[in-house]
């Protein structure tokens, strides 16, 4: 009977994977070094970072460990909630409340001998360039656009043309219900996350006047409770959408308003869904997308087969529909493009209107932008003193402050980069 050796391996352990690593296939690149070389790199040298230990992260960690990655790091800032247990299969009811990264790492090391998983319970923004530089690959299983933009920009900025090691392939997965996508990003070489921002669905936002004056849907009543009534009644007390008492309060207030306006359909579950912006999530979709991501990581790390170029999209509601395509790099991408983004606006547009327009734009997605030109500050959101000084500019026309063809630099705390716009007037 086989018994484990020092590295935790046993005879036959990699029987399945070694069939791939010992022989090239018809579509394998010539550079593939079949046999011990590639196995040694995968099992003893490759260092991989997993961002997110949630629905996708649990799956990703298990797949990586089984395919032979032995040095895995994982970052997650969340703790385990009972609603995670229908899909985050490394967690048990007894783990509720503990950090996801820690529990996931412990479980993988217990289940798959010889694999080292280093957890970090915290934010990706806590780590600096040196930290990210140590990895060969990064896989993301995140549910936040902001975090994805941050890691994407960070890895693009890390690229030093003189040092090939500084190019870290980024594999990104995402799911929603029966739908999902996986993609491979080679920072500065292929289309990056920022290049494809306009592919995201616009989040549903209800106009404040509808919420305040003409509610029609149960969602309008819930938004009224959370956006207007909570601060009015509770003052500075912060609403915690994970606190069932808070949800119950919102539900009660929303239900009362719905009754007043004869609107049907306010439920506890809908209240929670609206205020937490809950996205349906199931184990099966996460499994598909995580597998696609890990398969790309395996192919990139081993060269045993060509990797995805560069986007795989899956829709599982009507049969199994998928679409694999090359998402094009944007020359005017604010992160990887290098060229300023051209923007034509009316010469009558005020700075305030211009800021509103930027917030609305799907390919920019910015919350509180500050604007400046190379020679002057147009409007700064912070600090308060500068905000006050620049506030009078809000009512001025952009054309009074910027020359035609001039550059405007846009910054925001949520953006890990600054955006250059070249302004033309119509």
């Amino acid at each position: 009977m086989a018994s484990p050796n020092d590295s935790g391996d046993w005879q036959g352990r990699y029987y399945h994977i070694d069939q791939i690593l010992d022989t090239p296939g018809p579509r394998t690149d010539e550079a593939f070094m079949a046999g011990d070389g590639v196995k040694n790199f995968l099992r003893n040298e490759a260092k991989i970072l997993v961002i997110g230990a949630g629905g996708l992260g649990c799956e990703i960690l298990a797949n990586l460990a089984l395919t032979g990655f032995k040095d895995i790091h994982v970052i997650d800032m969340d703790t385990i909630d009972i609603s995670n247990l229908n899909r985050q299969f490394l967690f048990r009811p007894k783990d509720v409340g503990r950090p996801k990264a820690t529990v996931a790492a412990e479980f993988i090391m217990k289940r798959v001998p010889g694999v080292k998983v280093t957890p970090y319970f915290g934010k990706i923004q806590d780590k600096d360039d040196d930290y990210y530089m140590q990895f060969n690959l990064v896989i993301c299983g995140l549910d936040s656009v902001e975090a994805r933009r941050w890691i994407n920009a960070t890895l693009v900025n890390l690229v030093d043309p003189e040092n090939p090691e500084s190019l870290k392939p980024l594999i990104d997965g995402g799911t929603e219900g029966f739908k999902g996508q996986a993609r491979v990003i080679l920072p500065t070489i292929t289309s990056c996350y920022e290049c494809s921002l306009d592919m995201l669905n616009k989040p549903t936002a209800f106009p404040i006047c509808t919420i305040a004056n003409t509610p029609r849907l149960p969602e309008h009543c819930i938004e009224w409770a959370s956006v207007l009534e909570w601060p009015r009644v509770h003052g500075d007390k912060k609403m915690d959408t994970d606190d069932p008492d808070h949800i119950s309060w919102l539900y009660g207030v929303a239900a009362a308003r719905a009754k007043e306006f004869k609107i049907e359909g306010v439920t506890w579950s809908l209240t929670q869904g609206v205020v937490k912006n809950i996205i349906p999530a199931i184990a099966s979709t996460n499994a598909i997308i995580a597998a696609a991501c890990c398969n790309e990581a395996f192919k990139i790390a081993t060269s045993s087969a060509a990797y995805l170029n560069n986007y795989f999209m899956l829709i599982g509601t009507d049969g199994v529909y998928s679409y694999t395509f090359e998402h094009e790099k944007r020359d005017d991408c604010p992160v990887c493009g290098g060229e300023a983004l051209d923007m034509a606006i009316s010469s009558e547009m005020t700075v305030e209107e211009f800021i509103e327009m930027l917030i609305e734009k799907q390919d920019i997605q910015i919350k509180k932008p500050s604007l400046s030109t190379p020679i002057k500050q147009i409007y700064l959101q912070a600090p308060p003193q500068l905000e006050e000084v620049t506030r009078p500019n809000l009512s001025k026309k952009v054309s009074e402050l910027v020359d035609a063809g001039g550059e405007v630099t846009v910054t925001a705390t949520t953006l890990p980069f600054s955006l250059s716009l070249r302004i033309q007037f119509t």
Partner: protein
Amino acid sequence: MHDSQDIEAATTATVNEGRPDDKTRRYDRQLRLWAATGQAALENARLLVISGSATSASILKNLVLPGVGHFTILDHNEVTPEDAGNNFFLEGPSSLGKSRAEEVVRLLCELNDGVEGKADTGDVAEVLEKNPGYFGNFTLVIAHNLQATLLDKLAALLWSDPTYPILAVVNSTGFLAEFSLQFHEHTIIESHSETAPSLRIDKAFPSLLEYATSLDFSNMDSMEHSHIPYVVILIRALEDWKKEHDGKPPQTYDEKKDFKAKLLGMKMKADEENFDEAEAQAYRCWTETKVPSDITPLFDDPQLETLSPTSSPFFHLLYALKQFAAQPPHVLPLSSTLPDMKASTAAYIHLQKLYKERAAEEKKTFKGFLQVPVDDDLVDSFVKNAHGLKVLKGRKWGSLDQSPEVLVEKLSAYPRETSTHLAISALRASSVKHQNAKPTAEKLTSEAQALLPAGTELPEEFANAVGELVRAPTADLPNTAAFLGGIVAQEVIKMITKQYIPIDGCCVIDLIETWTGTI
């Protein structure tokens, strides 16, 4: 306006109402997809999975987590060092030599204590031989990489009676895989169609027409005028138009343009968004509401001619739908769902009431066509989802490979999918004939040729697929297993819940170029 005291009072009354229990909280993210009805169907399902392979365990994981009722793994093998290396539901070397079924069941059951799991260490060959009734205990049977002769036997057995379980056949080798579902017929009410039902703007029912034409637009204050729902604006504008055009809606491009201009001309102020919405929805005035083209063919189902009290409620409902649609104005029963639109609360709620009342009347008419009593919730769901009904007619597993002409057609229409399918079929046939011998490209090519008409040329895609199978003929790769685990579980959930639409055909997967396709 309420003062805060009133709100507080209302709040105390409802504070604990509707608060979900632990089970609902655990399943919250999936209940938002398939609701309590889907969950109940899942919890009543009994699955049989043949083999405790890495792929089988991956599929089961995604069914145990959402809470399937029962699963049995049928596998007489012991855990080998190879199994311990690629199956997450084995505990590495400490599982060696133990029953694979028992180990995998034990570790899967840790995921959800609401699920009953059973290990059966019997040999599938023996069960098929001596106890074919065994399979009747299950809702659905999943077979992964089952040896070809046993698979043929199992598929034939399960096909022999329409009441026998659905069969999911899964085959994978290295980076390549395929799977298909064998069922006789699958009917779906809740297809979760993304097309919305008609609002009947072009065929406004009497109370709606009466409401739309009775409003005095010109004497409204600006607040009221800017909150007339677009549905009302369109019906009103269409009536006015028809009076001037022999009772016909806008037909030519110019007329449509003209009609849209008229809509915008009705504005009192330039910023009235409700009229902009009306312009954007103007197509509803000249798109005739009728029975959707996907639904009409369902009325030709021969089962509607031979209904008996024991026929499935679905076909009784379909029969009633056919009768309903045969009456003027030849439409499906009205759905009471009204999309959101710029409107005052009062106008919107009134409109919603008109739709609801009419929907209730039409439902009553619809029920009048039913020949047997049907549960009212089911009637509601059927009427609400009538525009997205589906009836899938399945095929016997393996029938594609028995039709050389169809294969040739598919090969030219979908070369990469069909080539990969052929290569996998060839490997399965070859491994029966040459057990233990490593397959070669030549052998597999001649097996594939045997399925096709003489002289059929195989495309480059076939050489690519066969090359991969020869490279790794017995590899159950963790990533491929996980991918299949997700995709097969998803189809199983759709079959069991009878929600969403499952695959119709054979789904082929290539994880080198990362694509899937259905042939």
